């Protein structure tokens, strides 16, 4: 079976306008924007109640996330289930879906897994510390012109540029 020829990506202006209208729509229907990292915190709190209920309840961070009791009760879970469907459908329709471990030309698959876990650790810690991620603080906070979001975005891009200058060989 030959793989389908991939269709080219939308121009950034078109994709950005579509994303912006989606973001505006989300604010109009729910009062909040789009999010992602909170889902993983909900998951962690839920897994915590299964694995170590006493510790999780006593933990001053995760204890705050037990109100919803179950990730299925949170809007984030439904939104991200939709995002998964949208990503799957979009990549299939455009012939871009590929099972793969995506990596830079000089990075082995094994090293890529290590970098993915390592980068994930920084991101998980960072999202918890900031109280949000590129979606919730960057995009959503940006759309309501929150001062906090622009502090977040400047730090995000500055650190990304700096680390890429030091460790760019992972990808380029």
């Amino acid at each position: 079976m030959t793989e389908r020829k991939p269709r080219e990506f939308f121009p950034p202006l078109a994709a950005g306008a579509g994303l912006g209208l989606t973001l505006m729509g989300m604010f109009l229907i729910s009062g909040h924007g789009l999010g992602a990292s909170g889902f993983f915190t909900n998951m962690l709190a839920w897994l915590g109640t299964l694995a170590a209920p006493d510790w999780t309840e006593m933990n001053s961070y995760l204890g705050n996330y037990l109100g919803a009791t179950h990730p299925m009760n949170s809007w984030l879970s439904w939104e991200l289930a939709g995002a998964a469907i949208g990503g799957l459908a979009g990549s299939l329709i455009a012939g871009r879906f590929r099972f793969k471990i995506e990596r830079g030309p000089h990075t082995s698959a094994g090293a890529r897994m290590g970098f993915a876990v390592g980068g994930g650790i920084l991101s998980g810690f960072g999202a918890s510390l900031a109280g949000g991620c590129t979606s919730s603080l960057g995009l959503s906070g940006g759309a309501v012109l929150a001062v906090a979001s622009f502090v977040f975005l400047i730090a995000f891009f500055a650190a990304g540029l700096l680390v890429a200058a030091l460790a760019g060989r992972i990808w380029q």
Partner: protein
Amino acid sequence: MNFPLENPGILVLVLAGVLFGYFIESAGLSSPRKLTAQFALRDWTVFRVMFVAIVVAAIGLWLFDVAGWLRFDALKIPTMFFWAMALGGALLGAGMAIGGYCPGTSVVGLFAGRLDALFFMLGMMIGMTVFAFSYDSLEPLYQIGKGPAGQTLSGLTGLPTWLWLLVLAGMAWGGFLLGTWFESRRGGKISAKDLASGS
């Protein structure tokens, strides 16, 4: 009209998510090679898509507000915790430069077939667990640099919202020009064909 609505149904939330994932994937932002090419200044898609999305959503919400159809003060506006957000944002930037994703793009990336996204998610859960263990000692960080609740750029500066929208649109336009300049010197955008062939 009286936005925001009180109680969006599950179906509407899923639909908003579908569009979210669809536009992320269609822009190419489920690819860690394309995402990290932004930080190498080779491909400015991340900056362009994010900035256009922010400006479009911000102008739309402002128009609804001016028309009297939206209770702007009912929207969720994040409150500034300067050091927590600056350090957290920097860690997310570093995490993307090394791990290739942010939390949202890892979900879309996984469902476009990228198995490395699973490892990134595993890392995130570890990082959040470490944070949960260290939360008590980090708590003082939230007390320093705390801003007024839900402060906006207009609230901070006293300048009208429309002026800030103009400034942001101007910055987006400048970023587009700057991006095109860099892209022509640093190898250019990563296309869907590049990703499929692995070059």
